[in-house]
């Protein structure tokens, strides 16, 4: 098991490097320039030149990347073009906010998917399955910001149960913190659960037709224990892999929802970075999000391996 983790960590490093390169190039080829965004469209050519020279933007991209990466490894993400604030500390401050939101939303998505998906799979082609499959299609096709608006209207404005937005650090007031996080994580999680419910359903249907399920039935096991003890754990193995991929999409949704709910996380930083063509901010925020997705993928992969005894042995 330890060797397995080490091997995974070794492949993790090149993945991060490649991801950072792609990110760096992508940010720099985006139409619109940092100087125009910072100085306004009426800036003189001399001012633009000075700005670009000042921030090293007139040098070859490779050199820019190497310099950026060298500093980033040490946690230095440079200064914002807009207001000359150090980006590193800002990202660090916002990271726990986004981690909490993404984590809670992922729990909502996975929780819904496992329970509803297993139910639908067990009642394959019967009423619960038809209902749940329709609900899953609905969940998966709704835009998260639209659902967010709907939830705010219903639970905040109409019923007054939860705040419309804003963020309270959990170190200050845990209850207020959680109350503020409920709606955004539901909006994010529900939309992600659409696909995951279907994956769980299909996975469980496949497991239920396996021969060992019949063996378990012939022991006189109850239906509940049949699903919980014999089917679910096997169905989780493919499900977890897909859920890691879905987590990437979910984090993408964070960018929008942080704006909708006025949550000061990494996502809203990305938005600011794009609008202002503030490369240091955009790069740092996007890189942190990439890292969150990659680390989650790694953890989910390890979890899936632990659930399946065949993989633990085969890879050791």
């Amino acid at each position: 098991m330890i060797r397995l983790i080490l091997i995974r960590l070794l492949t993790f490093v090149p993945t991060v490097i490649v991801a950072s390169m792609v990110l760096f190039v992508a940010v720099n080829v985006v139409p619109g320039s940092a100087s125009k965004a910072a100085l306004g469209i009426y800036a003189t050519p001399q001012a633009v030149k000075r700005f670009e020279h000042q921030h090293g933007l007139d040098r070859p991209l490779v050199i820019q990347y190497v310099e950026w990466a060298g500093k980033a490894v040490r946690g230095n993400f440079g200064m914002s073009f807009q207001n000359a604030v150090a980006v590193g500390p800002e990202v660090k401050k916002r990271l726990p906010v986004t981690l909490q939101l993404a984590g809670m939303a992922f729990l909502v998505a996975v929780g819904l998917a496992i329970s509803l998906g297993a139910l639908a799979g067990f009642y394959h082609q019967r009423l619960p399955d038809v209902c749940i499959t329709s609900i899953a299609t609905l969940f998966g096709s709704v835009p998260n910001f639209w659902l967010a608006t709907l939830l705010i209207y219903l639970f905040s404005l109409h019923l007054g149960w939860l705040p419309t937005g804003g963020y309270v650090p959990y170190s200050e007031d845990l209850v207020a913190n959680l109350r503020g996080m409920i709606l955004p994580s539901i909006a994010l999680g529900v939309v992600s659960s659409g696909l995951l419910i279907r994956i769980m359903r299909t996975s469980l249907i496949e497991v239920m037709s396996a021969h060992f399920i019949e063996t378990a039935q012939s022991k006189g096991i109850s239906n509940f224990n049949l699903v919980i003890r014999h089917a679910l754990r096997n169905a989780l193995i493919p499900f977890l892999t897909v859920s890691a991929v879905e987590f990437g999409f979910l984090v993408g949704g964070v960018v929008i929802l942080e704006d909708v709910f006025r949550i000061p996380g990494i996502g809203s930083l990305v938005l600011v970075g794009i609008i202002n063509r503030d490369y240091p901010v955009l790069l740092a925020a996007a890189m942190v999000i990439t890292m969150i997705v990659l680390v989650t993928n790694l953890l989910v992969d390890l979890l899936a391996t632990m659930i399946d005894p065949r993989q633990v042995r085969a890879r050791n």
Partner: protein
Amino acid sequence: MSIIGSTGGDVLEINGLSIELTGRGKTVGSIVHDVSLRIGHREIVGLIGESGSGKTIAAKSLIGLLPNRIRVTEGTAMFRGTDLFTLSPKAIRKIRGKAISVIPQDALHALNPVHRIGRQVGEPLSIHTDRSGSAIREIVLEYLAKVKIDNPRLRARQYPHQFSGGMQQRALTAMAVSTEPSLIIADEPTTALDVTIQAQIIALLKDLRDGTEASFLFISHDLGLVSTLCDRIYVMYAGEIVESAQGADIFSKPRHPYTRALIGSVPRLHENPDTLQIIAGQIASPFEHDSGCRFRARCSFAEDRCANPQPMRSHGGIHVSRCWIED
């Protein structure tokens, strides 16, 4: 070898069992028709027939595990004084795995890959008894040793993929006998295994039969295998019993053309393998049966009268067959 009629009462007595495939509330096909079968105390009864003859479905109906849309439409199955077909799903679940256990076919896929062998073997005991976890563990080790698995303490902690096919079948056998059932349904227990391992499993089953109070219903398509093991044999074709007799008689004095053809299609060591007999055609579809003999389309002795319903004819003792040919 045979103890037919010697002990009081049968463990299982199936009478006139018919199983049909239904669709939209209507019967669309006959899978098992008018099957009667008895299993005496500590008897091994063989049920043989080719794939699709309905033997596994007939066995599954006993423990309430028929697939969707397949239903018992007629008949009774008296097991220790109660008709299994009248029991509620909950009541049959209490019998399943305890009084009637199953040694499944395809040993290589019959165990759950994510659970340890010991836990799976002990599961019937934990479902049906109040014994503590450690007591069950001791019983599991005892039965693993009984089915000749070396170092049971280590083996019980392993997973199915660490077991060979033969070992997996031994573990499944231990699981089936651990609750001391009255009836064990062995559903083609050797199909997925190679020949030398098959012989070991058969030897193991013989050993177990001598050591328990259980009766066996042994389902197979392998006539040779069944004839050495079974006290009595039922031959099934397209959902009907076409012949039944004491074990050795089926091989030495087959009466029904299907049984003869089945014996003829077993390759023999000293004959030219090019002349291997096959039974022409395919087994009839459940949607096409009429009231006549179901084998007549493939039978070389078929005549017009085969289209009439064929009653069982006695050939002395318990030997009966569903054909006019020996009249």
